[in-house]
């Protein structure tokens, strides 16, 4: 159990590529933090720096009270779960789980006890003497988890651990991992490019893009008050509707309609509205023209235009709509405004 502190961490590769701009944040003890962003945004680099697999170009990394910049990965008191599980193919499940302990000189009895505990927790008892090649993807994932938890580390690191599993198994493992982390109370950093995973698992989300942190916040904060147009479009499926508009003194004009906003600003802005905050309403001010309806069972997505701008509207399965004009109203307080050039939240 430990708090992780990054102060002024930066990564520049020898070829001059800056993978991570100067970044500082804390991860409180026992928190499940998810790093999310598109591929190449530096999230994996950041994780690998915490793990000690990449050198830190600049800044200070603390795990607990200890500065670990120059500490070997094995001595950082961490455990990591890899995307491809990275199980030792020639060892049985038991040996895979025990290998780290054996290298630390743990006594054979202790190893046996801890492996038994871990395998019990993960439901691996029947598979202990099999080789990884005889296991399914989900079971391999569990073995990788087992290898992490027997070491009783101060920090868990997950590098896209679910991306090799099929959708159904992924949902199941997502819950299992989250439950396990709750039970053990170990500080965790979890890297993913899947925003659903990020939303569902995180205590706190760190959204990254282009080597820098875009926003740090709880899933609800990140979803409802995105710090930039990037976050707005990355988090949520379908993404937030982003349209150019013009703000004047507490109002924003869009498609010849004025909408009240809480942010006071003047000039051109980018207006963001979540698809579920647009409501079909016969007396609504926005003239929406539905072109395509996506039927998703529990709900529907209406794709259409207001003026020249494309919008997506999320409606419940009971809402009776067809293609053609559907006037919309906006839920009060649901409009986010962003700077029209920099994309930062106003």
């Amino acid at each position: 159990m430990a708090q992780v502190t990054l102060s002024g961490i930066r990564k520049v590769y020898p070829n001059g590529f800056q993978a991570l701009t100067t970044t500082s944040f804390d991860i409180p003890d026992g928190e499940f933090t998810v790093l999310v962003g598109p591929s190449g945004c530096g999230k994996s680099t950041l994780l690998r720096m915490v793990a000690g697999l990449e050198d830190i170009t600049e800044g200070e990394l603390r795990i607990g009270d200890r500065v670990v910049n120059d500490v070997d990965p094995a001595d950082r008191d961490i455990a990591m779960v890899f995307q491809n599980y990275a199980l030792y193919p020639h060892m049985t499940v038991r040996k895979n789980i025990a290998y780290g302990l054996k290298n630390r000189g743990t006594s054979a009895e202790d190893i046996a006890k801890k492996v038994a505990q871990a395998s019990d927790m993960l439901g691996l008892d029947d598979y202990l003497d099999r080789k990884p090649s005889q296991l399914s993807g989900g079971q391999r994932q569990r073995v990788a988890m087992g290898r992490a938890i027997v070491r009783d580390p101060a920090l868990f690191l997950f590098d896209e651990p679910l991306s090799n599993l099929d959708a159904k198994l992924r949902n199941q493992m997502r819950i299992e991992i989250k439950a396990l982390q709750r039970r053990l109370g170990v500080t965790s950093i979890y890297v993913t490019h899947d925003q659903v995973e990020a939303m569902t698992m995180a205590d706190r989300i760190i959204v990254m893009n282009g080597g820098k942190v875009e926003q740090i916040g709880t899933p609800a904060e990140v979803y409802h008050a995105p710090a930039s147009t990037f976050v707005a479009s990355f988090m949520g499926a379908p993404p937030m509707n982003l349209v150019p508009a013009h703000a004047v003194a507490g109002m924003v004009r869009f498609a010849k309609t004025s909408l009240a906003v809480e942010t006071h600003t003047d000039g051109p802005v980018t207006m963001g509205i979540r698809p579920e905050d647009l409501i079909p309403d016969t007396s609504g001010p926005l003239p929406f023209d539905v072109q395509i309806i996506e039927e998703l069972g529990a709900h529907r997505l209406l794709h259409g235009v207001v003026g020249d701008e494309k919008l997506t509207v999320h409606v419940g399965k009971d809402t009776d709509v067809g293609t053609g004009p559907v006037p919309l109203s906006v839920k009060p307080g649901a409009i986010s405004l962003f700077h029209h050039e920099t994309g930062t939240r106003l």
Partner: protein
Amino acid sequence: MSDISADTLATDRSSAPPKRRIKWSTVVDHSVLIVGSLFMLLPLVVLIQMSSVPDVEVIKTGPSLQIGDQLDDNFNKAMFQASGFSGENTGTSMLINSFILGIGFAVGKIIIGMMAAYAIVYFRLRFATLAFWIIFTTLLLPLEVRILPSYEVVQSLGMLNTYQGLIVPLIASATATFFFRQFFRSVPEELVEAARIDGAGPVKFFIDILVPLSQTMIAAMFIIMFVFGWNQYLWPTMITTDEDMFTLVRGIKQITQDLEGTNIPEYGRANLLAIIAIIPPVFVVIFFQSWFVKGLTESDK
């Protein structure tokens, strides 16, 4: 349920007609293979035949279809009777020398090749790539090309007529290093990282993880290298002058050389030794072949 089983029975009956049709393509395939293997085996059969008749017979009639009764005799002569001056190069001692050369060469080459490849692939050495290509160019310079300087070096180190003189200069070539480098590069990076986090240092990683992973590769290398070492002729001829250091492949020639005198050459004995010289490589290949195929084809670890 009953419906289904009745159904399957019915199809079984219909799909197993008593008359089997001859597939001509299979017949052709097999006859090509049989003819090919007979063609390859024929010289061996001739060798066996010639070592079963008295030496005089060989000179008089050459190869024939008659199997003689000298096989036992010749075998005893080949394995246990010495030839030459010192009387120390019996077939048995030559066989032992050949084994030492073959195994020593294969094992030495695998160890050196693995270690060199390990250094090149896993350590951040300054000139690792350059070093690799320098090693690689030795493929262009086999022992036969550098035989005089090699001889000079071995001679000045006083290693003539020693096993190390026989083995070490042969080891110096890039094949094993090259194969192991390719193999190590295919080992997933994440495995290395997992091992680092598990606290395995460079030596532990090599012994606990890399060597077991390379098993099939090692077996494949062993076959190739053993056969290669076993069949060496030129180098042992250069480096060994003591008769008790002769290998089989080199020693056989010594026996037929008696032709230069007035004696009848000991054909039976030489031919039998030639057959004995073939047997160990054949057995190595037979026993290791499944590993061999795995090592060269299996990419899924």
